[in-house]
């Protein structure tokens, strides 16, 4: 069952695309995504992956070429970061509306200005509403596994949606990690070749991307909304199938030492592992703290989240992006709205940490817990508080 390797996470991501036998890769280079597409170009050039590598002239064209490719029936992959994702913005909505199961690896990076190649979640948080399935990886193994899962989910006839797998730029993409690389036969058994129900086929013509007059536009959008909501069972089912096939199990929301904890950290992405180790330390120090990690961001697993935070008095929600003009980060904004609607009212402290590659350490987590507990006791608000900002 697979073999243990030490590999740079970007290369593992590319190897996953190879294991999934992608037919077309259209990509434009941007730091820190480059190692992923460089390795794919190499795999194609060496004949290890039988695919068309389309070296497009922009990310806008990358996503546009992906739309054409998927519409013509190919298993299609692209990858980008930051400004590149922002340049794709227009096409991302069309991709999900046309129900095309493209898979994209997003090596998360901050947005300009000032220009910064380093990691945060500004890029993807600006694309929350694109109608894609969106997952967040915590480590190299997860990147590899979520990539394989992404093709499986997107191409499920019940889903037919694009999937974005988020991985923190540099912090994840550029580190070498030990991981289990699945065998080709295992992946083939899990992920059969893509069989679209319809495609741009001269034998059975279809028109794609038609005009939506006011009489049909609302219904078309409703259908998109339902499609994304309805993708949830398939996502979970394919994680269960993944566990059976590969022996590694994934949940939409993961809990770490939440039992009886008064306060829970809520994290996404690679910060989760730092937080986990900080929580372990704090538990040893007798603090009543645990952690909840959001792996599935879209569709948001509401019930899983509510179950995971049940009984917690305080939540510390970490954001790695800003929502200027409203004093909370994007994750906190959403979770507060959700909790309010569900009548669940823990104290929600919101910190913004790790912007533009700023390190977030275990000590920072301890300080956040101190502040949150104090504020909860004092009835003070903590929202959009920037960790480590020099003022």
């Amino acid at each position, binding site marked *: 069952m697979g073999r243990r390797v030490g590999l740079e996470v970007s290369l593992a991501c590319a190897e996953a695309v190879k294991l999934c036998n992608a037919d077309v890769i259209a990509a434009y280079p941007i730091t820190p995504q480059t190692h992923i597409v460089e390795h794919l170009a190499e795999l194609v050039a060496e004949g290890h992956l039988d695919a*068309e590598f389309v070296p497009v002239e922009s990310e806008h064209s990358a996503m546009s070429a992906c739309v054409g490719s998927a519409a013509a029936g190919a298993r299609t992959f692209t990858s980008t970061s930051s400004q590149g994702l922002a340049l794709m913005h227009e096409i991302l909505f069309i991709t999900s509306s046309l129900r095309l199961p493209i898979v994209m690896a997003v090596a998360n990076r901050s947005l300009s200005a000032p220009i910064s190649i380093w990691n945060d979640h500004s890029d993807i948080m600006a694309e929350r509403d694109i109608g894609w399935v969106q997952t967040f990886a915590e480590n190299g193994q997860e990147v590899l596994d979520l990539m394989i899962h992404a093709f499986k989910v997107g191409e499920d006839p019940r889903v037919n949606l694009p999937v974005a797998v988020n991985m923190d730029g540099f912090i994840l993409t550029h580190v070498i990690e030990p991981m289990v690389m699945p065998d080709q036969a295992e992946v083939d058994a899990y992920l059969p070749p893509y069989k679209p129900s319809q495609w741009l086929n001269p034998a059975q013509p279809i028109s794609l991307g038609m005009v939506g007059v006011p009489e049909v536009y609302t219904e078309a959008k409703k259908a998109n909304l339902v499609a994304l909501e309805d993708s949830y069972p398939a996502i979970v089912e394919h994680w269960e199938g993944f566990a059976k096939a590969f022996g590694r199990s994934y949940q939409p929301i993961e809990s770490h030492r939440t039992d009886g904890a008064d306060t829970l950290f809520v994290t996404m992405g690679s910060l989760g592992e730092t937080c986990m180790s900080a929580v372990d330390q704090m538990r040893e120090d007798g603090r009543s703290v645990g952690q909840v990690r959001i792996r599935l961001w879209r569709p948001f697993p509401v019930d899983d989240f509510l179950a995971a935070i049940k009984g917690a008095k305080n939540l510390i929600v970490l954001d790695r992006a800003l929502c200027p003009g409203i004093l909370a980060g994007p994750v906190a904004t959403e979770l507060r709205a959700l909790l309010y609607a569900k009548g669940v009212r823990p104290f929600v402290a919101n910190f913004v940490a790790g912007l533009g590659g700023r390190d977030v350490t275990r000590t920072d987590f301890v300080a956040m817990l101190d502040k949150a507990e104090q504020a909860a006791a004092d009835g003070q608000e903590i929202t959009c508080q920037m960790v480590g900002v020099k003022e």
Partner: protein
Amino acid sequence: MISAAEALKDFQKITPKNIPLVEPFSKGHRACQGCGEVLALRLVAKAVGMDMIAVSATGCMEIISSPYPQTAWEVPWIHVAFENAAAVASGVEASRKALIRKGRIKDDGAKVVAFAGDGGTADIGIQALSGALERGHDFTYVCLDNEAYMNTGIQRSSSTPYGAMTTTSPPGPKSRGQMTWKKNMPMIAAAHNIPYVATASPAWHIDLMNKVKKAVTVPGPAYVHIYSPCPTGWRCGPEVSIETARKVVQSRVFPLYEVIDGRFVLSRDIKKPIPVKEYLDTQRRFRHLGEKDIAYIQKRVDDDWARLLSLVQATNPVAAE
């Protein structure tokens, strides 16, 4: 890859006797009366045939052909956005190439054809087009040039001719209308050293269809630039659409030519051109122009024609002797 000339060695010409009867683009669409663009589109579709995969940019032809749940397309058709028809076509072509090679679809010889207006080509889509031409995808790009953003209500583009009145280049005491010379898209396409470039006018429909047929026959990228009269935007009667499309050629304002493997070939040598004024007079978008403006246009048209002839001579050394 074989050259365009080689690929066209046994080219079966379309003649008035064997005009294809197929209509990949059907009637019942919602274009304006006298629309030269939709006529050109229909002729292109006939020349390509039923094994076409069409990619449309946003624009007049897209909106008039696809009001859901109706479609005028009898062939597979996709519209994604305004500026990316060439990129989408790249993806379709790459997809088919991979799937045919991997034995997942059969090689049905389908032809990928991208359509865009002049704005979607010369302005917002020029980057995607340049990229696709440079990468060498096997597809044909058809620019249906009606010389302004007609779909949004007659705003100027870089393909709007000098002096033309549009809603964003209105003539007034401080303006003569469009103050810049029309961007030369066919020459820009030719500068990519692609196998085949052509210009066409719906007034010469057989010539137009043959050029399209050649474009889809040659391997690699081909570019066809079609002058497409827009009575609504040009302020002329629907009945003069074709007359306009004829006079633009006869006045040398829009020369008909091909660039085959870099070799320039005149489709019609206009030995006795009509004055440009005669062409300009067919449309009210030029009616504010005075003698000085018209003289300026005439001079530049003469210069452009001379430059084109020099290219024909330079790239046909034998014929020049």
